[in-house]
C-alpha cells in the first residue's frame, strides 16, 4: 500500500472543518465537528447510520449551509458558498445514490464533470465552430484520458443509464475526476457492489491518489476497505466526532467499539 506517498510532509490541511453544526428542524445532524484533512491523504469518515456523515459531506460540497462553524478550503471559508462556486474551487464529489445524467453518454457525463474548466458561453455555443469547438476538443482529450484510466473506452458512447450499477459508480467517479479536483469527496463509492467491483473501485481510488495526488475524503461502510486504503479515519456518532486517527488507532478506540456495538448511551 502506498503509504510512502501519502504520508508526506504536511504543509497545511487540504480541508479543515471547525466546529461545524447542522440542525434539521430540531434534530442535530452534525454537532460541532472539527477535523482536518491533510493534503494528498485518503481520509475516511465512518460511523453508524444517521451519524451525520453525509450531512457533513453535503456541507462541504455546499448543498447544506452549516448552522455554526466554518469549513476552510485553501484558507477560505466555503461554508456560505453555493455548490457550484465550491465546485469551481476544485472540490468534486460522488453521490451515495448514483446521480448520473442518465440520458447522456458516458463521455458527455465526463464533459459535464469538466464543466467548470470550460469557458464557452451561450453565443460561442450557438456558433460552435471556432473557439467553442477548439475548447470542446481540448477538454474531450482530458476526458478521454479519464475514460482510459477507468477502462471505460468501449462504453464512451453508451448512455450512462444503460450501464450496470458498478459501472455507473465508476462513471460517477470519472465525472468527479473530470474537473481535475484537488479534493475529492466520495460518498460510499463501493456501496452495493460485489467483491470484484469493490476491488476495482479500490484500485481506482488508490490510483487517483497516487497518480494525481488528489486528496480524498470518503464515507464507506465496508470496514475492510476503509482500514485498507485510508491514511486516517474519523468516526462520527450521533453527529459528533468520537474518534480520529490511523486505522489501527481507531480500531482500538473503545469509544468506537462502543458506538459500533451500541452498548453505550
Amino acid at each position, binding site marked *: 500500500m502506498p503509504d510512502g506517498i501519502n504520508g508526506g510532509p504536511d504543509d497545511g490541511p487540504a480541508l479543515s472543518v471547525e466546529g461545524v453544526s447542522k440542525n434539521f428542524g430540531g434534530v442535530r445532524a452534525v454537532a460541532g465537528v472539527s477535523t482536518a484533512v491533510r493534503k494528498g491523504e485518503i481520509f475516511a469518515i465512518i460511523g453508524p447510520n444517521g451519524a451525520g456523515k453525509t450531512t457533513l459531506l453535503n456541507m462541504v460540497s455546499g*448543498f447544506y449551509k452549516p448552522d455554526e462553524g466554518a469549513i476552510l478550503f485553501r484558507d477560505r471559508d466555503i461554508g456560505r458558498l453555493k455548490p457550484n462556486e465550491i465546485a469551481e474551487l476544485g472540490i468534486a464529489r460522488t453521490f451515495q*445514490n448514483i*446521480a448520473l445524467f442518465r440520458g447522456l453518454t458516458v463521455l458527455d457525463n465526463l464533459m459535464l464533470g469538466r464543466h467548470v474548466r470550460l469557458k464557452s458561453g451561450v453565443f460561442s455555443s450557438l456558433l460552435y465552430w471556432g473557439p467553442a469547438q477548439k475548447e470542446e476538443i481540448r477538454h474531450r482529450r482530458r476526458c478521454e484520458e479519464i475514460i482510459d484510466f477507468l477502462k471505460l473506452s468501449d462504453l464512451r458512447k453508451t448512455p450512462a443509464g444503460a450501464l450496470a450499477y458498478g459501472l455507473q459508480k465508476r462513471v460517477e467517479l470519472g465525472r468527479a475526476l473530470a474537473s481535475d479536483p484537488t479534493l475529492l469527496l466520495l460518498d460510499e463509492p463501493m456501496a452495493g457492489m460485489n467483491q470484484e467491483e469493490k476491488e476495482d473501485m479500490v484500485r481506482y481510488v488508490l490510483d487517483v491518489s497516487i497518480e494525481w495526488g488528489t486528496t480524498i475524503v470518503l464515507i464507506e461502510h465496508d470496514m475492510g476497505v476503509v482500514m485498507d486504503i485510508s491514511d486516517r479515519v474519523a468516526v462520527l456518532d450521533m453527529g459528533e466526532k468520537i474518534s480520529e486517527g490511523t486505522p489501527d488507532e481507531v480500531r482500538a478506540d473503545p469509544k468506537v467499539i462502543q458506538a459500533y456495538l451500541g452498548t453505550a448511551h
Partner: protein
Amino acid sequence: MADFHWGFFLELVVSGVLIGLMYSLIALGFVLIYKSTDAINFAQGEFVMIAGIIVGACMASYGLPLWLAIALSVGFMVVFNVGLERTVLRPMIGRPIVAIIMATIGLAALLRGAGPFFFGSGTRALNLPIDDAPIIIGDHFIYLNPIHLLGAVAAVLFLLGFGWFFLKSRKGVAMRAVADSHQVSMAMGINVQRYFALAWVMAGVVAALGGVIWGSLLGVDTQLAVIGLKVFPVVILGGLDSIVGVIVGGIIVGVVENLAAGYLDPMVGGGTKDFTPYVLMILMLMFKPYGLFGKPIIERI
C-alpha cells in the same frame, strides 16, 4: 376614487366572497387530485364543462328532470375518471410532472372536441329552480345574488365535507397517507391505486357539481371550460394541497377581482379583473411559492 362609498365597497366584497367560494368549488377538484396523486389536472375546467354539457343535454334534449340529469352526469364523471385514471394517469406514475401537465392539456383539447361531438354544439340553458331577483338586505345597499349564494353555500358544504373526510374518515386518513408517501403506504398494505382512482372519482363528482352551478350561471357549451383558468390563482394563493387554502384562495381571488374591477379599472382604463389575481399569484410564487397553506417540498440528495 374621489367618491368612495362604503356600501359599494361592501357590495364588491360580499359578491367577491361569494364568487370566490364558487371558484373554490372548481379548484377543489384540482386540489383533491394533486393532494392524493401528485398529478396536475389542467383539464379541470373541461371536466366542469363536460359535466355541465351532460346535464344540459339530458334536460334539454331528453327532457329529464334536473336531479336525474345531475345523477347521470355524476355517474358519467365517475366512470370517465376511473377509466382515465386506468388508461392515462396510472401508466404515467413516476414520470415528470411536466408530462402529466401536458397529458391533461391534451385531455382538455380532447374533451373540448368530444363534448360537442357527442352532445351537440349548441348552447343550452341550465336553469336551476331559483329566482333571479336580487335579495337586498336592509337599507345598506347590500344585495345578494341568489345563484351566487347557492353556489357559495354548495361550495362551503362540499369543502367542509371533504375537510371532514380527510380528517376523520378512515378512507380519508388513508388517502392522506397515500398523499404523503406512496412507498410507505404501499408498505403499510394500502392499495395505493385504489385511492388514486378514488381521488379521481371525487374530483369528477366535484366537477359535476361545479358544472351544474357554473352552467346555470353561464349556460352550457364548450365555453364553460374557461372557468378552469380561475383554478390556478386560487390554488397557488391558497396552497396546492390544502383544503383550507382552497377556500381562502378562492375568497382572495374573488374579492381582489371585484375590487380591481371596481377601483382599478377606472384608473387604468382596462380590464384588470382577471389580471390582478395573476399578478398577485406571481408575487406569491416569488416570495412564498407554496402558498399560504401549502407544505414546502424539502429536497434531498
